[in-house]
């Protein structure tokens, strides 16, 4: 229990409340989309599965696929190669160079993207152009990417989107610290839940209990999230300007090491399958790999695996491109281990919860979900305390719109993805997802504004979301996606698990709404100040 002066407590209360009123809704968007994005890879596997699961992300034969692709690109695109897995375990290889963009200032990657079926080694897709042109055409992995972009920068162009989410992260940090300071009885608050209908006290108990349990996690997410956003938006450019006098090459040399002397003479590349096997033998699963100067004497190969069981920090391996010799582990930053490099490496697992597979991701999802609930319950509590002031009813309507309208719009975007992939909707997938998302959000916003009673707004949106979640599963099956028996026997775990999760989520929402409808009095309040919203 913290003993604060009355004035300090008042200041903390003002920071907590007004910070939430100003940033709460956008913060909810960022937290909710981030929570769902914990499973972005699994969502991609669910939306675009291969006929059968791929036992190894980069199976034997990866080397042959890359050699086939390397023989099919212009020599300048052999400058750099990045290979990683995408939806369903497909392999995505981007041979590219850094071309100058039309504005003459910003370099843009230009090259050829190949998408391989890892089981057969066949090229499924081939796109050539600048990275933005390629991204506009490809669709594998776009559903997860759509979610991640909402979380990372709210689809606002860089650096403004990153600055915005960075400031939202800092506001969450303030909410955590001020909330902790205001807790008078931390242990008691974690268990106290007085159920007295829809009064202020029960709203407060629900908010305080959820936030107390969620406090350490929210603090970690706020810290790591604002680090990621602000580092990319302005901290790294600023520090590069000061510490290296604006010399980007010097910065890259310090972080990545001196590149080998230029030697464009052709050279046979060592077998990449053997390198991947070497990484597997060390207990790691490859996440992605990079190759500089493919087919030249000065080629470099790096393999970056997921953390092995019991490991927290990710690592990387360097290989000799000609002999295939394992040159050892690469620190995340710099040429030798350091505190700074370990701190940066620690930010990833702490933020993404990806250090123990499904288990840690499920915990991160649950805690993230609790964080989203805390945002909405806090805003509802704020309005509940100002029940007599009709102006605040607009905030309640906006809160309900965000709470239920955002997930509903995400369901609409996922439906658009499935329809485009099945060929029902024509055109690039991202604009289609945006249209579906925007249309659904606009409709739910209009609804939140015109339905007379606040309870009615919530009821319509919750029922729509419940039905939408169930309909998404039906749509996937109707469009020719694998059935449950076929998915289960083919090892497509993500398909089965996510289908069940969507159906359970939808059914739970419908049941919850049905029970709340039964519990309501027959003639509830009819003015716009009716606040019989028990929970958001």
């Amino acid at each position, binding site marked *: 229990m913290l003993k604060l002066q009355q004035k*300090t407590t008042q200041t903390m209360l003002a920071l907590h409340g007004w910070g939430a009123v100003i940033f709460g809704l956008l913060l909810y968007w960022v937290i909710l989309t981030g929570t769902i994005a914990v499973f972005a890879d699994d969502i991609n596997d669910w939306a675009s599965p291969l006929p059968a699961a791929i036992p190894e992300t980069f199976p034997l034969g990866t080397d042959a696929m890359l050699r086939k692709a390397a023989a099919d690109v212009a020599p300048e695109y052999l400058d750099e190669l990045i290979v990683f897995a995408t939806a369903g375990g497909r392999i995505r290889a981007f041979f590219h160079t850094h071309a100058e963009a039309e504005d003459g200032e910003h370099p843009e990657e230009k090259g050829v993207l190949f998408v391989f079926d890892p089981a057969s080694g066949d090229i499924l897709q081939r796109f050539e152009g600048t990275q933005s042109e390629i991204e506009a055409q490809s669709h594998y992995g776009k559903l997860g990417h759509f979610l991640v972009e909402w979380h990372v920068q709210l689809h606002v162009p860089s650096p403004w989107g990153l600055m915005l989410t960075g400031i939202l992260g800092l506001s969450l940090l303030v909410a955590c610290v001020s909330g902790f300071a205001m807790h008078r009885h931390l242990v008691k608050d974690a268990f106290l839940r007085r159920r007295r209908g829809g009064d202020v006290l029960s709203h407060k108990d629900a908010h305080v209990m959820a936030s107390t349990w969620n406090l350490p996690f929210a603090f970690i997410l706020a810290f790591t999230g604002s680090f990621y956003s602000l580092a990319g938006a302005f901290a790294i450019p600023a520090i590069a300007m000061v*510490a290296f006098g604006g010399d980007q090459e010097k910065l890259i040399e310090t972080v990545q090491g001196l590149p080998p002397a230029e030697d464009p003479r052709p050279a046979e590349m060592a077998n990449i399958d053997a390198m991947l096997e070497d990484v597997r033998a060390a207990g790691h699963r490859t996440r992605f790999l990079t190759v500089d100067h493919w087919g030249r004497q000065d080629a470099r190969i790096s393999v970056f695996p997921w953390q092995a069981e019991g490991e927290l920090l990710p690592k990387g391996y360097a290989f000799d491109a000609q002999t295939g010799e394992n040159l050892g582990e690469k620190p995340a930053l710099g040429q030798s281990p350091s505190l*700074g490099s370990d701190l940066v490496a620690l930010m990833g697992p702490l933020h993404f919860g990806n250090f123990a597979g499904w288990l840690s991701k499920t915990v991160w999802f649950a805690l993230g979900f609790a964080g989203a609930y805390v945002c909405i319950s806090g805003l509802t509590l704020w309005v509940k305390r100002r029940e007599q002031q009709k102006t605040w009813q607009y905030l309640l309507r906006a809160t309900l719109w965000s709470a239920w309208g955002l997930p509903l719009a995400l369901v609409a975007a996922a439906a658009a993805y499935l329809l485009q992939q099945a060929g029902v909707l024509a055109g690039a997938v991202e604009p289609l997802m945006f249209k579906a998302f925007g249309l659904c959000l606009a409709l739910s916003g209009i609804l939140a504004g015109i339905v007379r009673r606040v309870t009615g707004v919530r009821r319509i949106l919750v029922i729509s979301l419940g039905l939408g979640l169930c309909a998404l599963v039906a749509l996937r099956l109707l469009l020719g996606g694998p059935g449950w028996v076929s998915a289960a026997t083919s090892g497509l775990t993500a398909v089965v698990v996510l289908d069940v999760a969507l159906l359970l989520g939808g059914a739970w929402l419908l049941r919850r709404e049905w029970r709340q409808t039964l519990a309501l009095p027959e003639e509830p309040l009819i003015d716009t100040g009716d606040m019989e919203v028990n929970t958001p």
Partner: protein
Amino acid sequence: MAGTRTEKIWRFVLAGPLVLLATLIIMAGSSLWLPEGQAQVNNFVIPVVLLPAIWAVLFFYSVLDRLGRASVVIFILTAVHAALIAQHLLQAQQ
């Protein structure tokens, strides 16, 4: 956060944009006095990692301490780091 209207406005400006600016300058300036470490990355990586912490400390200090004292302390911290940056950039140009 009681006080006159002017004090409230100044507190808002100090805790908002000025603290953000101070954070940026202190973070960048710290890279000039923090030890590099064997890998020569600690001096510029650690301030970036600690950016949210630097901001949080300055922010809460700016809203909780006496306005005058908070303004002076934050100004001095910022000015010292700005001077370090200016000196470093001038030396680099010569």
